[in-house]
């Protein structure tokens, strides 16, 4: 079930009314659990069983980790959880990718191998709920989270419908404590939750799908070389589309959870105002960045074993981060670009130290725009289907492709330029703040006016129920 669908409006209204209408906390939790499985099963019912089996297995393994007597046994059960989760993810998401690459490698060794294509349907949101579930056993192993005795509560923590299919990646350690006692209905909280859902929907339906996706699709779908203006417009459009699409989903998820009395952490913090790549990683898909930091980078040694090892660790993390997004080498290259720039930034900081010039507004603005430009170059690999496609776009952006074609209308170019300029302005204005405190400073009339305009724009746009980009991950 998509947030931007009519059935979700009905579904959420019914769940919200029933949830706050019920008195018993246990019954309300049961309602949320059933609603979450209906939300997921409405896409493909059999995969709800897969979701439950993953959850049940991690519930069992979490209890085994907690009950284990010695460190070896604890580690053994933890490895069992990691292996089972990653095996399932690997089979569904990376099976064909692995077979294709095996075939390619063997072909280069002169061995003809034609594996059958695995006719496997990718369960929606598998990358997200696998990490939701896995975070529990890893946190129990680390001692950060006490094992829950309630399978129902843990199942709800993994499957809670607002964040189930496209994040944020909510850790059981953050969610399970919220299931201990019932939240209280606060009108302001409900109102803010609905306002966030409107903002998220506006970002997805109006900005991403209507104002930006057309130019991005046209540029990335064109097989010839382009004029630099067209190539840049397409790439800038995609940079806005991917942000509004994903941040829109996260904002909706956080808003929906808030309406039900739950608090989910921010997943985006004005990332296009980042100064440097380490800043960007703290602002973009924060829940994944922190997951990889806590469960991969730090266990690998982090930066505790010297700069060289830290650099290698960074590259490993970004390699995995790229692969998490999709089973294709273009995603890996996208991740590696971020990894390489993170390394370069560390070297730069080590050389320059805390130089005074780096704190001036002009320098920060310049570095910020430079970061955004490199992020845009990296997005080319994220969006392009193949390396030749990516190379063609990059050459066109740099004007190195000779005479290219003009494929975008003037209106589309103006539209993308206006939206991206507004996006950058908004991010730079709010970069050291957060959305809630920024909104709190505005007069109520202005808030109501903006909210009305967003709702009206959603109604005017209607939307065709396009899936969110991150659903495929």
């Amino acid at each position, binding site marked *: 079930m998509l947030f931007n669908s009519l059935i979700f409006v009905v579904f959420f209204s019914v769940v919200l009314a029933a949830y706050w209408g019920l008195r018993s906390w246990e019954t309300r939790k049961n309602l949320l659990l059933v609603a979450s499985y209906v939300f997921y099963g409405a896409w493909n019912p059999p995969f709800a069983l897969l979701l439950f089996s993953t959850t049940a297995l991690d519930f069992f393994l979490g209890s085994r980790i907690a009950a284990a007597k010695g460190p070896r046994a604890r580690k053994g059960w933890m490895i069992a959880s990691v292996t089972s989760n990653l095996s399932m993810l690997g089979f569904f998401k990376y099976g064909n990718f692995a077979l294709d690459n095996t075939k390619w490698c063997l072909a280069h060794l002169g061995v003809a191998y034609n594996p059958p294509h695995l006719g496997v349907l990718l369960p929606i949101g598998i990358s997200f709920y696998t990490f939701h579930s896995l975070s529990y056993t890893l946190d129990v192993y680390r001692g950060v989270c006490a094992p829950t005795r309630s399978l129902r509560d843990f199942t709800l923590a993994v499957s809670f419908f607002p964040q189930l299919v496209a994040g944020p990646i909510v850790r059981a350690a953050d969610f399970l404590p919220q299931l201990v006692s019932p939240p209280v209905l606060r009108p302001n909280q409900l109102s803010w939750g609905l306002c966030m859902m409107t903002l998220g929907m506006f970002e997805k339906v109006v900005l991403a799908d209507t104002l930006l996706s057309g130019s991005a699709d046209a540029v990335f779908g064109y097989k*010839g070389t382009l004029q630099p203006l067209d190539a840049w417009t397409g790439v800038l459009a995609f940079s806005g589309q991917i942000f509004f699409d994903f941040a829109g989903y996260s904002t909706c998820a956080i808003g929906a959870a808030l309406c039900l009395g739950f608090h989910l952490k921010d997943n985006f913090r004005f990332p296009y105002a980042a100064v440097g790549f380490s800043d960007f990683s703290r602002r973009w898909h924060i829940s994944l960045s922190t997951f990889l930091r806590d469960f991969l980078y730090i266990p690998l040694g982090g930066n505790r074993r010297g700069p060289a090892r830290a650099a290698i660790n960074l590259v490993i993390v970004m390699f995995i981060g790229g692969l998490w997004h999709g089973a294709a080498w273009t995603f890996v290259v996208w991740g590696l670009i971020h990894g390489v720039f993170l390394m370069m930034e560390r070297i730069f900081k080590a050389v320059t130290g805390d130089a005074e010039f780096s704190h001036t507004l002009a320098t920060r603005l310049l570095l910020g725009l430079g970061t955004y430009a490199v992020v845009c170059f990296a997005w080319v690999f994220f969006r392009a289907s193949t390396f030749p496609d990516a190379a063609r776009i990059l050459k066109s952006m740099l004007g190195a492709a000779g005479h290219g074609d003009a494929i975008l209308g003037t209106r589309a170019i103006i539209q993308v330029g206006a939206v991206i300029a507004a996006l950058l302005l908004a991010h730079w204005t709010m970069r050291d703040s957060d959305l809630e405190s920024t909104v709190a400073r505005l007069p109520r009339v202005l808030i109501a006016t903006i909210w009305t305009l967003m709702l009206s724009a959603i109604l005017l746009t209607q939307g065709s129920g396009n899936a969110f980009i991150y659903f495929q991950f």
Partner: protein
Amino acid sequence: MLATSLVTLALAAAWEIKCRSWGYAPTLNDTPDLWAMRRNAVKPDSVVIIGDSRAWFDLDLDEVERGLGSRPVQLAIPGSCAYPVLADLADDKSFHGTVICSVVPIMFFAPGGPPVQNSMDAINRRRAQTVAQKASNEIGMFLEEHIAFLKEDDLTLGELLNRLPIPNRAGALVGPPLPPYFETEDRERRARMAPQCAIPGPLQDRVKYGWLPLFTPPPLPTYIPRDVFLGGMAQAVEARFRDAASAVHRIRARGGKVVFVRFPVSGELRKLEDQATPRTGRWDRLLKDTGAPGIYFTDYPELASFTCPEWSHLSASDSVEFTHLLVPHLRQAIGSAL
């Protein structure tokens, strides 16, 4: 929150009044979900209409039912190539009914692009349609039947922005805009031309002159050598003849029937189509290769006498009369299709 809701509702009501004053009335959007719903209604022995917008506008379901004794299922898709749907029916081993297939050569033989994509979108939606999508479609249809501004081809923010009169750069390869609102559609996907479009006026002119750039072949791509591109196009047309013949043979082997129909076209558009895709090169060979019967509107004086007000489709009233006159030829063709 209450003020926001009330003001939004007031703005929506004002927009609805404005749209109705422009002549818009509530009607269904022609979505892949609606198509999927009708495709699911196809029974093994159904009469099925496939093809482009001419079969969608010009055939009256009541008249076909009266003439052939079976309520037809309307599966024609505007701006589409019929072949993917023909192949879908051929692949459906239970299907042994009758297919009435509209042929606009420039679309039927399109190697890819929007005509094929439009059909594939509908077919793929049916194959992968979820329970949630079906439910959303039901709610959407209810709303569209009551609210005029939910006309997604014409009144969405994106479409309104498209209409801004901003000139493009010289040499920009920007596709021509699609014609504006000119039809209504019901739950059986019966389309009817809007009355304002059937009479001379600004809407009719906008639709009429919208066809010429749409039906004019686009410039050759710059990134493929001319010979290679034209060779590829010729191969694609040959492949379409072969694939269409294969699909027709599979349907006929199960006892089904296929009839091709060339619907009326008028004015400058007819000249353009005849010039770009002469009858002998496409239509005649399609009938020869598939062995299926065909009805070409110019072969029958009573069918050739109709004029399309906007050059491409018949008015709602003419479509009923046209279908009434077409049915005897369909009956005869179906009889000979065995």
